[in-house]
C-alpha cells in the first residue's frame, strides 16, 4: 500500500533547461575520478600512488577512523594523477581508463544465495568491495557506520529536482536487481524499509516493489531529496540513525552482491540553460564532465555543477561527476552588469518575492546565470526563510545560533534536520550564505558531539 506525502514548503524551480525524458549511450570516458570530498567527514588514507595500475574495485582510500571502510576505483587503468588542494587536502584521484574493464572479484552469488546472506555476511561483503560507501546515514549525510543498526532505511527513488535523472525512467528493465537491492536493504535494519517514489511513478520496479513501505512524494523542490523524505517519513530519534541510498546506488549495490564486481554504470542527466543537448546519458561512475558536455553546451564562460543547481558542487570544465550525483547542470557565469538594475520593473527577473513585475506576469522559466544578484549585507528581511524551508527550520534564527556558537540552541532549532537544500540562501535578499552557515553549525556538532 502506497501512502502519499505532499511536501508543502519548498520552491518550484522556474529555471530553464530541463532534460528530455530519454536515455542515450554516452561515449566511454577517457578518465574517471574518485573525489574524497563527496564523502562528508571521511578522513582518507591514500592506498595508491600515481602510476599504479588498478582494477575496477581496487581500494584507493581507506577511512582513518575505520579501516574497514574503503573507497574503490571506479574503473581499471592507471592512476594518472592524485590532485591535492590547499593544505595537501586530497581532491581527486584520477584513473585513466585502459582497454576492457578488469575487475577485482569479490565472489558472485546467485539470487537465492544473495537473499540468504546473513546481515553480518552482507555487511562484510559490502565493506570489502567498497560498496558500503553507497550507504549513507542521517543525521550528518555521511557514509553509514557499520557498527550501527539504523532505525530504518529509506530508498530514494525520486529525482532530486527537475534536472535530475528520474529513477522512474532509469530503473525500467532493472526490476529484478532493484528488488534484490530492496531485500538486501531490509537485512540492514530491524525497522521498516521505506521506498520513496514520485507521486506519478509508473515503472514496475517502483510500483510493484515488495517488502517495503512505498511512499509517494509530491511537492516542489526539494521534495525529491532523501533528507527531506526522511524528515517527513521517519526522522531519526535522538542518538539514532536512518540510512539511505539513492535508487541508482541501491541498484549498484545489488549488482555488486550478485556479480561480485563493482558496478560502475550510472545514468546522468545533462541539463541547465547553457546545455544544448539535454537528455539522460548512460555513462560511468565518476565520469569526466567533458565526456558529456563536449559539443553539448554553449560556448563562453560556463559553470558546471555536479548535482543540483541548488546544492551541487561547482566543478571545472575538466572536472568529474560526483559519486552520488546523477545530474550535470550547465549555466552561464553571470558577470554582465545591468544599468540601474533596481529601477527596472524586472520583467525578466526571477524572484520568489513579489518585488518584480515578473512576479505578477511571470514567465514559466528563466535562463538564470550565476550572478549573485546583489551584494552582501546584514540580515534585514525576516519571514521569508522559513517559508521555503522544507524541514520546518527557521533558518535565519538558526544561523544566528550558529554564529553565537550555541550548540544547544542549534539543536533545539532542529539544525540536524537541515537538508542542505540551499533554498534559504537562494531567497536571501542580503545575499548571506545561510545554508552554509547552518552546515558550519552541523560540522561543529559533529566535532564536539
Amino acid at each position: 500500500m502506497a501512502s502519499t506525502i505532499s511536501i508543502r514548503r519548498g520552491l518550484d524551480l522556474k529555471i530553464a533547461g530541463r532534460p528530455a525524458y530519454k536515455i542515450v549511450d554516452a561515449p566511454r570516458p577517457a578518465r574517471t575520478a574518485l573525489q574524497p570530498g563527496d564523502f562528508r567527514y571521511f578522513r582518507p588514507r591514500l592506498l595508491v600512488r600515481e602510476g599504479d595500475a588498478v582494477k575496477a574495485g581496487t581500494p584507493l582510500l581507506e577511512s582513518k577512523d575505520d579501516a574497514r571502510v574503503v573507497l574503490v576505483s571506479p574503473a581499471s587503468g592507471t592512476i594518472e594523477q592524485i590532485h591535492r588542494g590547499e593544505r595537501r587536502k586530497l581532491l581527486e584521484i584520477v584513473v585513466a581508463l585502459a582497454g576492457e574493464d578488469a575487475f577485482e572479484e569479490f565472489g558472485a552469488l546467485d539470487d537465492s544465495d544473495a537473499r540468504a546472506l546473513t546481515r553480518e555476511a552482507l555487511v562484510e561483503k559490502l565493506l570489502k568491495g567498497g560498496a558500503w560507501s553507497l550507504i549513507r546515514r542521517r543525521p550528518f549525510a555521511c557514509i553509514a557506520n557499520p557498527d550501527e543498526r539504523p532505525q530504518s532505511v529509506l530508498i530514494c527513488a525520486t529525482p532530486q529536482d527537475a534536472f535530475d535523472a528520474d529513477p522512474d525512467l532509469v530503473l525500467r528493465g532493472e526490476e529484478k536487481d532493484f528488488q534484490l537491492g530492496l531485500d538486501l536493504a531490509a537485512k540492514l535494519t530491524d525497522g521498516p524499509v521505506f521506498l520513496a517514489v514520485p507521486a506519478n511513478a509508473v515503472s514496475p520496479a517502483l510500483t510493484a516493489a515488495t517488502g517495503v513501505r512505498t511512499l509517494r512524494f509530491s511537492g516542489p523542490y526539494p521534495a525529491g531529496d532523501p533528507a527531506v523524505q526522511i524528515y517527513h517519513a521517519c526522522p531519526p530519534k535522538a542518538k539514532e540513525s536512518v540510512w539511505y541510498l539513492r535508487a541508482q546506488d541501491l541498484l549498484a549495490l545489488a549488482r555488486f552482491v550478485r556479480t561480485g564486481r563493482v558496478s560502475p554504470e550510472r545514468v546522468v542527466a545533462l541539463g541547465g540553460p547553457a546545455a544544448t543537448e539535454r537528455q539522460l546519458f548512460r555513462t560511468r561512475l565518476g565520469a569526466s564532465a567533458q565526456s558529456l558536455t563536449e559539443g553539448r553546451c554553449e560556448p563562453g564562460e560556463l559553470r558546471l555543477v555536479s548535482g543540483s543547481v541548488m546544492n551541487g558542487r561547482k566543478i571545472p570544465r575538466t572536472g568529474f561527476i560526483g559519486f552520488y550525483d546523477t545530474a550535470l547542470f550547465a549555466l552561464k557565469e553571470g558577470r554582465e552588469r545591468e544599468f540601474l538594475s533596481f529601477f527596472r520593473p524586472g520583467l525578466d527577473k526571477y524572484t520568489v518575492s513579489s518585488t518584480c513585475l515578473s512576479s505578477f506576469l511571470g514567465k514559466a522559466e528563466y535562463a538564470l546565470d550565476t550572478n549573485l544578484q546583489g551584494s552582501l549585507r546584514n540580515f534585514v528581511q525576516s519571514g521569508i526563510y522559513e517559508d521555503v524551508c522544507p524541514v520546518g527550520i527557521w533558518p535565519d534564527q538558526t544561523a544566528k545560533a550558529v554564529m553565537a556558537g550555541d550548540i544547544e540552541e542549534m539543536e533545539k532549532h532542529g539544525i540536524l534536520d537541515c537538508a542542505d537544500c540551499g533554498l534559504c540562501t537562494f531567497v536571501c535578499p542580503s545575499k548571506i550564505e545561510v545554508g552554509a552557515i547552518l552546515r558550519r553549525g552541523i560540522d561543529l556538532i559533529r566535532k564536539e558531539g
Partner: protein
Amino acid sequence: MNVNPIKLLEEKLEAARPLFEKGGKFEIFFPLYEAKETFLFSPATVTAAGPHVRDALDMKRLMILVVVAILPTFFAGSYNVGLQALAAQGLPTDPVSCMLKGLMATVPIVIVSYAAGGIWEVLFAVVRRHEINEGFLVTGLLFPLTLPPSIPLWMVALGISFGVVLGKEVFGGTGMNVLNPALTARAFVFFAYPAAISGDKVWTWVNPAKDKLVDGYSGATPLLVAAGSKGPQVVAALTDAGFTMKQAFLGSIPGSIGETSTLACLAGAYILVATGVGSWRIMVSCVAGALGMAVVMNAAAGPESAGIMFLPGVWHLMLGGFMFGTVFMATDPVSAARTKRGKVIYGLLIGALVILIRTVNPAYPEGMMLAILFLNILAPLIDYAVMQGHFAKRKAWRGASNV
C-alpha cells in the same frame, strides 16, 4: 561612430576601480566608490558555491520599494502643509498654490535630512570599511515626515545625526540596530526640543509673529482637541473645531508632514504588502490592538473622563502618527519582531500601547513613537518566547512522528 554612453560609463568606472582598491590612491573611499558604482550598475559578483543561482531581490530593490511606498505620504503631506499654511492666512487654496507652498516647506527639510545623515553614513562606511547601507534611503526620508513643517532645519540635521549615529551605527549599522533609527531621531528631537515638536503652535507652516492669521485660527491638532475636551461628546468637540472624519482620512488636518493623510499611508501599505516587502501581520495586528484597546477605554470611561477616553477606535486610527507609524515604522524588519507569531504579538502590543498612552496621559496625546520604540526593545524578548514554543512543538512532533 556609435558609442553607447552607458557602456562608456561602465568602462570609465571600471577604469577608476584600481584607485579605490587596496593600495590605490583613494583606498579609504572605497565604500563611496562601491556605493556609487553598484548604484549605477548591478555588481558582477557571481555565486561562490551552491545554490549557484540567486533570487533577483536584493537590498537595493527592497529599499527602493520602501521609498516608493513612502512617496504618497510625502506628496499628500506636502500638499497639506501648503493647504494649512494658506488657509491659516486666509489666502486662496487652489491645488497648485497648496502644492508649491507645501513643497517649499518640505523639500528643504528632506534635503537636509538626507545630506546630514548621508555624511554620517559615508563617514562610518569609510572608517569601518563597510559598504554604505541602502537602509539610509528609507531612514532619511521617514524621519523628516514625522516632523512638524515649522521645524528649524538645524534641528533636522541634529536629529538625523543622532538617529544615524546612536540609533544605528553604534550597533554596527543596518541590520544590527535595536531601535528604529528614524524614530530614534525623532525621539531625540522630541525630548531635546519639546517646544519645537509639540503643543499647538508648530503644526502649521506660518510665522505667527509676522504672518497675519485669520480669526479663529487655532493650529491645534485633532488629537489635542480630543485630549482637551471633556466627557462623551468628543466627536462633537472635534466637529466644532472643524475636523470631520473625511478630513482626517484624506489628511487635510494639521499634523506632522507625512502623518496626516490616512489615505496616503494606506496607499503605501498597499505597495508594501503587495510586494511582500512590509509585513501585513504587523500592520493588521497594530490596527487590531488599537481598536481593541479603544473599546476597553471607551468602556472604562466615566462621565468626568477626558474626551479622548470616549474617542471611537476608528478615529484613533486616522489621527496623529498612528497609520504612518503602523505602516512604515512598526514594519521596519530590523527593529521589529522577526518570527511570524512574534510579529502579531508585537503589533498587537504597539496598537494597544498607543491607545493607552493617548488616553491615560492626555498631556501627551501622541503615543505612537514611544509605543514603537518600547516594542523595538521588547521585540527580541517576544521572539525568544515564540522560539521556546517552536522548540517545544518540534520536540513533541519528533516524539510523535516516529515509527
